[in-house]
């Protein structure tokens, strides 16, 4: 009886495979098209008509993305805001969105970035990671990196050079932003902007459990921006709400900021601001101006 009990315990342990990695991703399936300004789903803010982007400056297209573990590429969707014919001279912000829904959900944020420093001043590139929106496949950590790099590869092919690439990561998007700035593939970003970034999967687990549990008890995710940032020498701009109820400003963002070893960095802690509210709480004008100043520095 005792042996049987031990066999059952060991057997369950060895054969069990519950991992909660997929819970990081929260894509919305089932959309049939990107609606952009016509999107009427949940949004945290909607910009007024002065932020409208002319239709000739909005391009929606597909890319082939292949992670190292894949035998065949995955088709993902991308949006470029700007004139695709002037990418060889423009400065472009690679916007890596968060873990929710799809690009429609982040469209207002991408538009705001395009207007930093003036109307349609910057090109903005955004992709739906695999499994998000119309992109094929299932979300994965490797997939995040491959999908953003597929966009960078497209930009490179369109004439973008390292010195005019600014990487922007919001929330979960801080993972591909830090990874591809720390370990560049197609292009090496000139600057890095992080809005409400993760420190690491480990910090998320320890914040919730109080005790310092090893992350491997729950997840195989290796997201570790706090370590990746140590290899990044490019200038860093960090923005974080002081009342972020999702990713604690002190245990997440501040750790990433403190670990940056580059020659220049600037921090913007926005009072009374939660995870999703930073642009409107900061003030659109302040947000746009400060990003523009940082990019031009």
């Amino acid at each position, binding site marked *: 009886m005792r042996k049987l009990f031990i066999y059952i*315990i060991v057997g*369950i*342990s*060895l054969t*069990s*495979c*519950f*991992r*909660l*990695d997929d*819970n*990081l*991703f*929260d894509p919305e399936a089932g959309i049939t098209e990107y609606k952009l300004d016509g999107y009427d789903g*949940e949004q*945290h803010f909607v910009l007024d008509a002065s932020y409208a982007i002319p239709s000739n400056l909005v391009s929606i297209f597909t890319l082939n993305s292949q992670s190292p573990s894949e035998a065949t590429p995955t088709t993902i969707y991308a949006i470029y805001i700007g004139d695709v014919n002037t990418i060889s001279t423009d400065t472009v912000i690679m916007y890596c969105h*968060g*873990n*929710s829904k799809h690009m429609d959900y982040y469209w207002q944020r991408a538009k705001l970035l395009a207007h930093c420093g003036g109307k349609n001043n910057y090109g903005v590139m955004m992709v739906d990671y695999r499994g998000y929106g119309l992109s094929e496949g299932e979300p994965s950590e490797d997939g995040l990196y491959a999908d953003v790099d597929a966009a960078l590869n497209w930009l490179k092919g369109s004439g973008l050079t390292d010195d005019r690439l600014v990487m922007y990561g919001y929330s979960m998007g801080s993972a591909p932003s830090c990874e591809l700035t720390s370990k560049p593939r197609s292009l090496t970003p000139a600057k890095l902007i992080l809005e409400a970034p993760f*420190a*690491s999967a*480990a*910090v*998320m*687990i*320890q*914040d*919730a*459990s*109080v*005790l*310092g*549990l*090893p*992350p*491997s*008890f*729950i*997840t*195989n995710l290796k997201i570790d921006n*706090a*370590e990746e940032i140590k290899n990044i020498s490019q200038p860093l701009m960090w923005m974080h709400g002081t*009342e*972020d*109820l*999702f*990713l*604690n*400003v002190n*245990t997440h963002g501040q*750790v990433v900021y403190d*670990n940056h070893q580059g020659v220049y960095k600037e921090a913007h802690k926005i009072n009374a601001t*939660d*995870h*999703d509210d930073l642009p409107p709480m900061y003030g659109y004008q302040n947000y746009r101006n400060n990003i523009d100043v940082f990019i031009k520095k």
Partner: protein
Amino acid sequence: MKKIIYGLAGLLIITQLFSCMPSRVVRPLDKGQRAVGAHLGGPLIGFAGTTIPMPFTSIMYAQGVTEKTTVFGSVHTTSLLFGVIQTDIGACHNLYYNDSLRIGLSVTPAVNMAYDKWESNFKLWPQVDVNMYWDIRPKKSFVYVGVDNWFELANTREHDQPQENRWIVNPQIGYTNVRDKWNHNIEFKYLAPNLDNEPGVVDYKGVSGKGAIGVYISFIRKF
């Protein structure tokens, strides 16, 4: 954002299973008596518009080694499903008993240990329960109040950040219905009442933004 929180809650609420179970033994068993128990429950959380206790499970074996001391060991069955072997091993010792008032005081030191098959990480943390119980009738059903204490031995968290929560205090109250062969127990625990439950991705149900209320039931078969 709430939807994001719910999505990620699954990743994170589960972490509580590593640190949260009801009192294994409050009143020692008789000398030589054995017991096997199943425990179910966890902290209350808001999930998908309602409040639920996390359904964490564990099984326990206990044996009375003297009239005053019972040793026990457990396996956390929910943890097993995640490839983590977790146990808590300890002893309940009766410090005091007043025959006329039928009030007793027990202390239960234990060691929690967990090991995962994925990266072979190991974690150990001590725990001490102190409970005062009142026998409603001699040797029969009893109620108890006490404090469950967890101790974090590590000085630092991930990324060499200071570990500020070294001693976690969890007050508790419970009732044990004692039958000839079975005990049935319900326990309410206020987990970490001194700690803010925000910011965080888990919608813990505490009091005024502090801690989380835990609810547990146990079924114990005695031999």
